């Protein structure tokens, strides 16, 4: 039959079913017509009316029978009996609460959590970005493992070079974020993030403005009050969404600008936090591989694949010296320069990829366990129903009817489970698993869409149908022969079948163990993170951040003078005991651009190099932060203006540069610093971390910021390779943060009222944040591991209980010939333990094989921790023993007389 004919037939079935009252009436009318016709025919042949009627009925041969057969032929029977079966199914399921509850709980927990996590993974990882033809958008990154640069951004040189020569990428745009934008009109200066970008970025992303117009190439020629665009959020917040926004003036870092237009809501390139967009032009006369700050986005030319674009870029990278001959050939080689093309989406989620991969694996494992549970429960039930089914078969039920019955039952329970899973999924998505937007990009776009809900219910139905069919095949594998009635679970023939069941449960226990182990490792990693000495004393500490505009603070002297004046103003605040300032705060994200390479030579003349994290700190920084001085001293006046300026090293950096030598008085050389390449170590302090504790201690080199230079000094160049224009000020005070906040603002405003103050936080909060990411992964894994263990225990319980119940005759015989109830219980229990033991061994192997996924996520802990393995095995064993205990006891309490009579 062709598909179309099949469809037509199905439609007719449906129509006839919907109008079955009318169809039935017509059938009755037709039969009545037939009988009347026959009767009058008989009358014509000389019968009396009564006789004629009787003869007509007789000739017809059973009106009711043919009416039913006709109805059958129409296919009503399947739909009618479907309703009947559903009703019967409900009744039967109520009589088997253990089975029904087992399946419903399994699917509600399993599908609910899997769907919640799945929606998260889909929303963040798999869903297309909200740009036209988003799968054609690519990000190009640059890698130079041989250089002292850790960023994967482009230099102006590589961007210009690719823009000029690449044909596989139709358009290339560059952008660069700048956090230090202050909106200086209005009463309170507001600090926002800005982005400089080439105007073609909007063309690449095919953006449509919410108001006004997009930036254009010719905007780059504007001299004064040049155009900028603002974000939708800023438009709403600062201008109340005023429709006449285009053409309004805005003062940014004390420069007047004109608002050309507003970006649409949800526009999040280069990141969600950008509020001001400046047009920018990128020019380059050299490759500048160590000066990289441009984020590059492009649109693939029509018909070009990522692989083709990658191949072209590889060729271009190899020949970059054609364009920039000034790039030394040896640097070109030793830098290991390479370009990498990936879709914009991959680029955006790269930072959370390990977590998401783990989540995806967890979903897989959880679903597998849930399905295995439903399989175990359904098949065991089918096994028990074999006798009943065999009786139905002997009494004339056909295979189709029986299959329908099992399928309907399967769908009823699995749909109930799926329906309960939906609120669990919605709740877990609403809770966002405790994640914040800052931790996971695109998180706020995650929802349970109707599509996901329908898929969830569809999966439930598929599971119910599958196991219905399998159960029917299992239960109905007896034929209609009465002899098959003897063939039931109580005989030895069930043994192979039980082995299969035990196999399923073994796999479940293995999966549960391996998930639990992962959760345990994460938990122990988290516990260690909590114990880590973050290297500073957060008690009674508070900080805020400022950013100086370039205009008015273009020299080191003026910038330093501002910073030192703020420190003096803060010292005068009542209740403040000490004040310090630093370019970078420990336990927060570290600026990637401040990572030069340094070199130190020890007393044996051995030279070592390493990448460092640079910081610029004031005299009292170590005191106010409670960072201990381990050797030498903290900064003192004179360290900055010394012929060889002084620096302080973190303990780990000191050890890496000078080995066991005393580092005090030794010199370090900084590759990128030209005028003052050499510094003298005056002290060694305790180690600190970045915001990611799992990455280990930072190798920090501290430069001094001291009031050494007399006011009016003509020296304009900095003696340190950094401009302290954006500083964090830290105070020690027992006063509450809310009391200190206005004091901070007042102190800064007393020096320069147009400098914004932001990120006012207690040091305690900073310390707590650092472990948040680890806490999240652990929490998620914990939820899944718990669900898995629960489901695995349900599975084991049902297998043991059913198997024990099915062997009641065997137990009865043994009890009758003298076995003690204890011995029977012990035997059942032993079998449960045996299954568990095999599962545990399998789980160990599984965990060992998948340890790589975890390695990136755990801290100072081996992903193959032996103690953790033992502990997890103990938990699993305990759970499964509880699951085994009551069936074992029940087996021991079998009443021989009843069990044997029951045959």
């Amino acid at each position, binding site marked *: 039959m062709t598909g179309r*004919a099949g469809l*037509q*037939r199905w439609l*007719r079935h449906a129509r006839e079913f919907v109008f079955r009252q009318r169809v039935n009436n*017509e*059938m009755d*009318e*037709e*039969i009545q*017509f*037939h009988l*009347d*016709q*026959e009767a009058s*025919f008989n009358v014509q042949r000389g019968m009396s009316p009564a006789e004629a009627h009787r003869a007509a009925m007789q*000739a*017809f*041969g*059973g*009106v009711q*029978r*043919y009416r039913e*057969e*006709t109805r*059958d*032929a*129409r*296919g009503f029977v399947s739909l009618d009996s479907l309703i009947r079966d559903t009703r019967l199914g409900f009744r039967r399921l109520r009589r088997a609460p253990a089975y029904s509850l087992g399946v419903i709980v399994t699917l509600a927990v399993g599908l609910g959590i899997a769907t919640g996590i799945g929606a998260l993974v889909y929303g963040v990882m798999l869903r297309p970005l909200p740009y036209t033809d988003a799968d054609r958008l690519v990000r190009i990154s640059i890698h130079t493992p041989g250089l002292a640069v850790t960023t994967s951004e482009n230099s102006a040189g590589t961007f210009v070079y690719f823009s000029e020569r690449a044909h596989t990428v139709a358009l290339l745009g560059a952008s660069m974020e700048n956090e230090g934008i202050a909106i200086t009109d209005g009463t309170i200066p507001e600090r926002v993030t800005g982005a400089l970008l080439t105007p073609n970025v909007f063309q690449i992303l095919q953006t449509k403005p919410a108001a006004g117009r997009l930036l254009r190439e010719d905007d780059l020629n504007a001299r004064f009050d040049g155009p900028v665009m603002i974000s939708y959020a800023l438009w709403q917040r600062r201008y109340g969404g005023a429709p006449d926004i285009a053409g309004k003036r805005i003062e940014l870092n004390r420069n007047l600008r004109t608002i050309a237009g507003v970006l649409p809501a949800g526009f999040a390139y280069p990141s969600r936090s950008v509020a001001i967009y400046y047009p920018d032009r990128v020019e380059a006369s050299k490759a500048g591989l160590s000066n990289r700050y441009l984020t590059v986005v492009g649109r693939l030319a029509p018909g070009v694949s990522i692989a083709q674009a990658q191949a072209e870029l590889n060729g271009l990278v190899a020949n970059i010296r054609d364009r920039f001959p000034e790039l030394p050939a040896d640097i070109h080689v030793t830098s290991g320069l390479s370009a990498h093309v990936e879709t914009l989406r991959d680029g955006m989620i790269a930072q959370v990829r390990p977590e998401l991969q783990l989540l995806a694996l967890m979903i897989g494992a959880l679903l597998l366990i849930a399905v295995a549970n439903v399989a175990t429960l359904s098949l065991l039930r089918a096994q028990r129903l074999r006798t009943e089914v065999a009786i139905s078969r002997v009494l*004339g*039920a*056909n295979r189709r*009817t029986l299959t329908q019955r099992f399928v309907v039952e399967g769908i009823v329970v699995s749909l109930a489970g799926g329906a309960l899973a939906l609120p669990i999924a919605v709740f877990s998505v609403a809770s966002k698993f405790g994640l914040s937007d800052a931790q996971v990009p695109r998180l706020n776009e995650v929802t349970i869409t109707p599509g996901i809900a329908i898929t969830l219910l569809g999966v439930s139905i598929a599971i119910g149908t599958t196991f219905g069919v399998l159960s029917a095949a299992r239960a109905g594998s007896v034929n209609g022969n009465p002899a098959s009635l003897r063939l039931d679970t109580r005989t030895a023939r069930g043994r192979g079948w039980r082995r299969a069941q035990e196999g399923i449960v073994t796999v479940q226990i293995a999966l549960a163990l391996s998930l639990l182990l992962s959760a345990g490792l994460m938990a122990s990693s988290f516990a260690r993170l909590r114990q880590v000495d973050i290297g500073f004393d957060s008690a009674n500490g508070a900080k805020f951040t400022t950013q100086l505009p370039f205009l008015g603070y273009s020299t080191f002297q003026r910038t330093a003078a501002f910073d030192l004046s703020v420190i003096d103003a803060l010292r005068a605040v009542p209740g403040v005991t000490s004040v310090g300032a630093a370019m970078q705060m420990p336990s927060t994200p570290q600026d990637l651009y401040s990572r030069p390479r340094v070199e130190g030579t020890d007393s044996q003349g051995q030279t070592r190099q390493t990448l460092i994290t640079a910081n610029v700190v004031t005299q009292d920084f170590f005191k106010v932060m409670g960072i201990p001085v381990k050797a030498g001293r903290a900064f003192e006046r004179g360290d900055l203006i010394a012929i060889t300026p002084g620096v302080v090293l973190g303990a780990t950096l000191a050890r890496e540069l000078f080995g066991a030598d005393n580092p005090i008085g030794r010199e370090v050389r900084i590759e990128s610093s030209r005028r003052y390449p050499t510094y003298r170590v005056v002290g060694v302090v305790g180690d600190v971390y970045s915001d990611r504790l799992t990455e280990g201690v930072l190798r920090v080199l501290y430069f001094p910021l001291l009031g050494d230079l007399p006011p009016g000094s003509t020296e304009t160049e900095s003696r340190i390779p950094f401009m302290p224009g954006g500083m964090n000020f830290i105070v020690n005070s027992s006063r509450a943060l809310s009391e200190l906040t206005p004091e901070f603002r007042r102190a800064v405003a007393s020096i320069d009222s147009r400098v914004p103050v932001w990120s006012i936080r207690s040091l305690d909060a900073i310390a707590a944040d650092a472990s948040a990411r680890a806490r999240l992964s652990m929490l998620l894994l914990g939820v899944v591991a718990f669900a898995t263990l629960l489901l695995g225990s349900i599975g084991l319980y049902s297998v043991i209980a059913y198997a024990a119940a099915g062997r009641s005759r065997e137990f009865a015989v043994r009890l009758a010939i003298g076995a003690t109830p204890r011995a029977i219980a012990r035997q059942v229990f032993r079998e449960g333990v045996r299954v568990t033991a095999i599962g545990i061994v399998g789980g160990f192997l599984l965990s060992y094989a998948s340890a790589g996924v975890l390695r990136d996520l755990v801290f100072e802990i081996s992903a193959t921790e032996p103690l953790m393995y033992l502990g997890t095995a103990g938990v699993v064993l305990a759970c499964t023993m509880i699951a085994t205990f009551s069936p074992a006891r029940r087996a021991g309490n079998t009443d021989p007389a009843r069990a044997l009579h029951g045959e």
Partner: protein
Amino acid sequence: MARPESNEQVLQGTLDLLILKTLSLTPMHGWGLTHRIQELSNDAFRVGQGSIYPALVRLEQRDLVRTEWKITDNGRRAKFYSVTAAGRRAMIDELASWKRFVGAMDLVLGATS
């Protein structure tokens, strides 16, 4: 639901063919159809008259016959059946295989006698 197999079921395929053949001559209602089949077969087929109705429904569902309510000569509403083009094709196929079957039976039966 399983019913013992009857000779009616054995004759099922044959009944379908008889109905198609009869209807291909002229459209008619169910009662007329039973009588025409009996007439044409010299009363050889004396199955229950009702058995043509399930058969007609099955044929209708396979699009081999179509139905239409019409007024009969004596002024009553009756359901009239006629053969579709597909029905005609099916009938020709069935007839051919029927003839092959009969021929084969003849050969075998002729050989043993």
